[in-house]
């Protein structure tokens, strides 16, 4: 190797060494700069994640309240309350649509009868089939409680805080309430849910009150979850312990997590309207077909009932609306 070559090589090595050293120096600059920046932030920081269900399609759950007394099997009695609960996870919205128990409808393989008889004829599966046929909506799940299990469920979560919308005084259901926010234990929540004699619109108004209980439960569940996320377990366990459902525990957990993201203030609580009449000796409700069709079509799309399709409250006269 000539001297010239050797010098060139030395210069090259020196350049490389200087570049490496310079790079190292350069690399220290951001660190020095960051260190000179305001020191660690002190504001309270919060991070959370809940595994909500896929928001690509609405979820439909048929919620059935059996009128079974404590010594009766809940699936072989009549359905005292029937509600379609639709959930749109993507929009954090939910809708409750009550179906009056006296609605005179086609029950598959049983001809026309009051919808509450579907539970007696064929259990919750037949109620689902009947509602699917009536609305054209496909139910993803059903969930059911009876009187005793509903009471126990409410007591398990230390009662429900409900804004009772108007005074009630009904001996039959033992619903005696002043209007206003109050915590109802299981016994009182059941009385609130059962009262119809005291309401001008009877079962229509009762169905709305039952929806109100569900909205109140959602609001309370969310509030408790926000204060202590572990409360989710107590609510889930209460539901699984006292309810009957097609939902697996995994699915209940998924729905519960999804419920924490639903805006309770925006839940539409509607009741299918209809006219009261007689078929033979039966007092029945003939559903308003146009409203039924409009609501069913609206829900099928995204599970969210548009304001324009929410029928007037059956308790309107009591609400001063």
């Amino acid at each position, binding site marked *: 190797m000539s*001297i010239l070559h050797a010098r060139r090589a030395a210069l090259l090595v020196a350049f490389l060494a*200087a570049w490496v050293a310079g790079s190292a120096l350069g690399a220290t600059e951001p*660190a020095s700069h960051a260190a000179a920046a305001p020191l660690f932030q002190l504001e309270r920081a*919060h*991070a959370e*994640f809940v595994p909500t269900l896929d928001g690509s399609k609405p979820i439909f759950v048929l919620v059935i309240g059996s009128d079974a007394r404590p010594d009766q099997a809940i699936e072989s009695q009549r359905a005292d309350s029937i509600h379609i609960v639709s959930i749109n996870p993507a929009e954090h919205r939910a809708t409750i649509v009550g179906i009056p128990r006296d609605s005179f409808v086609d029950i598959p393989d049983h001809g026309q009868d009051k919808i509450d008889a579907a539970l007696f004829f064929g259990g919750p599966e037949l109620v689902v089939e009947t509602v699917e046929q009536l609305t054209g909506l496909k139910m993803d799940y059903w969930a059911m409680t009876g009187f005793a299990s509903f009471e126990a469920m409410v007591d398990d979560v230390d009662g429900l805080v409900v804004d009772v919308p108007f005074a009630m005084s009904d001996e039959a259901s033992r619903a005696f309430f002043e209007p206003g926010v109050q915590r109802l234990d299981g016994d009182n929540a059941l009385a609130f849910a059962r009262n119809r004699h005291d309401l001008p619109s009877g079962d229509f108004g009762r169905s709305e009150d039952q929806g109100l209980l569900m909205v109140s439960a959602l609001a309370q569940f969310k509030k408790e979850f926000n204060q202590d*996320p572990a409360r989710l377990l107590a609510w889930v*366990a209460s539901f699984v312990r006292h309810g009957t459902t097609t939902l697996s525990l995994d699915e209940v*957990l998924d729905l519960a997590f999804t419920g924490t993201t639903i805006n309770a203030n925006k839940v539409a609580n509607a009741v299918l309207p209809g006219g009261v009449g007689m078929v033979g000796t039966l007092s029945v409700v003939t559903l308003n077909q146009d409203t039924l069709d409009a609501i069913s079509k609206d829900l099928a799309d995204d599970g969210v009932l548009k304001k324009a399709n929410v029928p007037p409250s059956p308790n309107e006269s009591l609400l001063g609306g």
Partner: protein
Amino acid sequence: MTPNRVQRGESKKRRVPLALLIVPIVLVGIGVAIFLIGGGDVPIVGGDDEVTPPFDFIVKGASVVATAPDADEATLASTADDVAQEITPTIDDLFTNGYLDPSNWRDGDYEEVFATFAPDAVATAEESVETLTLGATAGDVFATVAPGKSKLSYQVLFDPDGAVETAVVTVVFRATAERKDGTYLAIVSEGEFFLRQIDGWTITAFDVTRADHETQPPSPSASPSG
């Protein structure tokens, strides 16, 4: 002895490698000196301060959340204790990797922390790096971090057949971090982690709040307890 031509040639050959060696060594030396002086806040890798302080949570107990009306509470309580024992090392590691291991916080590299989260949760966890760990730029700010008294409690949800479904761990983690300017910060992380068994105990949901505050230097007699 006068060197012959061949020997002179060999001598020349020896002088060239010396130049090649000396110049870069001097330059690298200067570079390293500037690196250490100019970037004085950057620690020397492999120093004594790279040791991760030992840390273990204190477990305050495990409670049962049963879904079967006729659940055998005593059996479930025993299982819940076992679950707590199984999960605790995972939570110990989560906080050790997130707050105490200098090789993580000096570089803002918390890969081991995020490996504990379920696939659905990991993106949110990574976005929450400032809340779930000492922070991405902690190495620029802090000199040392020492663990404090930290505790865990468990609630274990059982399915109707008595199998473990989900566990919720309530965490209170405390540490004291010394800043490079000599001031101290009390690190407080409180929250809940929902865990399920998915290839080991995995975090499926979380709700964590950081409530750090200024603090005084620890007294010499104080010692962190695990």
